[in-house]
């Protein structure tokens, strides 16, 4: 059984320069209160691994605005001109990764595989400098696993042992990221007693979750 943390307490755990896996897709399913707490704290230099950087002033975009991000590994920054501006100015390093490759690289990090063999990116700039592996006459890119120091997970609800449920398009990268970091902090909308979430509804088992944020309202 876990103790509910206040967002500021959780943010305090995260040191300067940490590698953060942050769930969400254009902010949907992102851990919003954790992001706000990180901005309020002001410690940065983070490497952020996420699908995208959302929009200026929104979601992960707030971390960009606050210049707390030194590097991001993302699939898309098209809707965040501030990310592009900092990148072009040389203030922010951006590694663009195809979305399907990004999620498999994080999964590989989480489930202990040595890498990902994918055809995605072959013959494009994504393949530059990367080894290829031939399997039965077909060529694949070897993409490396990604792990984080912390995973910051948005969830619909959890129970006291940390079992997580997600909903609709707010799943996205969260279940995979919850497997791939040394410390996993979950931000649920609702917290419920043990036994309220049926075993078949659990998408992230509580044994993967280190800390839970207090309920939303």
């Amino acid at each position, binding site marked *: 059984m876990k103790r509910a943390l206040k967002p500021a307490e959780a943010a305090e755990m995260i040191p300067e320069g940490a590698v953060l896996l942050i769930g969400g897709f254009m902010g*949907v399913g992102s851990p919003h209160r954790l992001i706000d707490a990180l901005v309020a704290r002001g410690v940065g230099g983070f490497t952020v691994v996420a699908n*995208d950087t959302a929009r200026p002033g929104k979601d992960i975009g707030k971390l960009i605005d606050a210049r707390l991000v030194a590097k991001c590994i993302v699939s898309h920054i098209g809707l965040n001109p501030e990310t592009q501006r900092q990148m072009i100015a040389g203030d922010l390093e951006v590694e663009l990764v*195809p*979305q399907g490759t990004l999620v498999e690289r994080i999964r590989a990090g989480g489930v202990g595989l040595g890498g990902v063999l994918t*055809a995605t*990116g072959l013959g494009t700039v994504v393949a530059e400098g990367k080894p290829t592996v031939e399997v039965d006459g077909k060529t694949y890119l070897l993409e490396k696993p990604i792990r984080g120091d912390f995973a910051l997970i948005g969830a619909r609800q959890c129970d006291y042992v940390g079992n997580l449920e*997600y909903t609709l398009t707010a799943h*996205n990268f969260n*279940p*995979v990221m919850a497997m791939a970091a040394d410390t996993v902090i979950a931000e649920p909308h609702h917290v419920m007693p043990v036994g309220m979430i049926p075993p078949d509804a659990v998408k992230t088992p509580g044994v993967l979750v280190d800390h839970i944020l207090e309920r939303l309202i």
Partner: protein
Amino acid sequence: MDAKEVIARRVAQEVREGMLVNLGIGLPSMVANFVPDDMHVFFQAENGVIGLGQRPPDGMEDRDLTDAGGGFVTAVPGAASIDSAMSFGLIRGGHLDMTVLGGLQVDEKGHLANWMVPGKMVPGMGGAMDLVSGARRVIVAMVHAAKGDPKIVPECTLPLTALRRVSLIVTEMAVIEPTDEGLALRERGPGVAVDDILAATAARLIVPDEVPEMVLA
């Protein structure tokens, strides 16, 4: 009928009963409006739902149910939530029957460039590289030329999205199928002459004796 509607209506004719279809944001997303109501088709939004529906009524939006562009959507009865690993497993694994994507350039080999303009626009590839590599059919839906500049070119000058040959190119002027021999002109747009198409196309086209006009019901 404006150019975009011509394109969307013609692409909609490629959709078949029972298909799983991914529509890119922007013009491709208009295709859903022209699929017959009695045809059972599942639209996938790669951010996490199979069975994407229309916009929700005002005041009924759920912030955890959006399309890949972050816009509010609904889901049809029989919809399924998927996380990003499942979403791209479907795409990469060949389970997606069709994807419709916008294009910046397509060349004589049927190669698509649609994700960046070096020095100008670096949005990131998002899911495009996986979609083009993995979907069973890849349909490029785009206006034929960009302010007079041909977009169908001998060889892409912009960074490629994938080495995979796309299945079909649909513009307001023409339907073109990339083949082993090159780009074959299959149909003319409404009221468009073959010579108009040739004038607006930088790539070599294979033109049969008879080029039927699109039939847009």
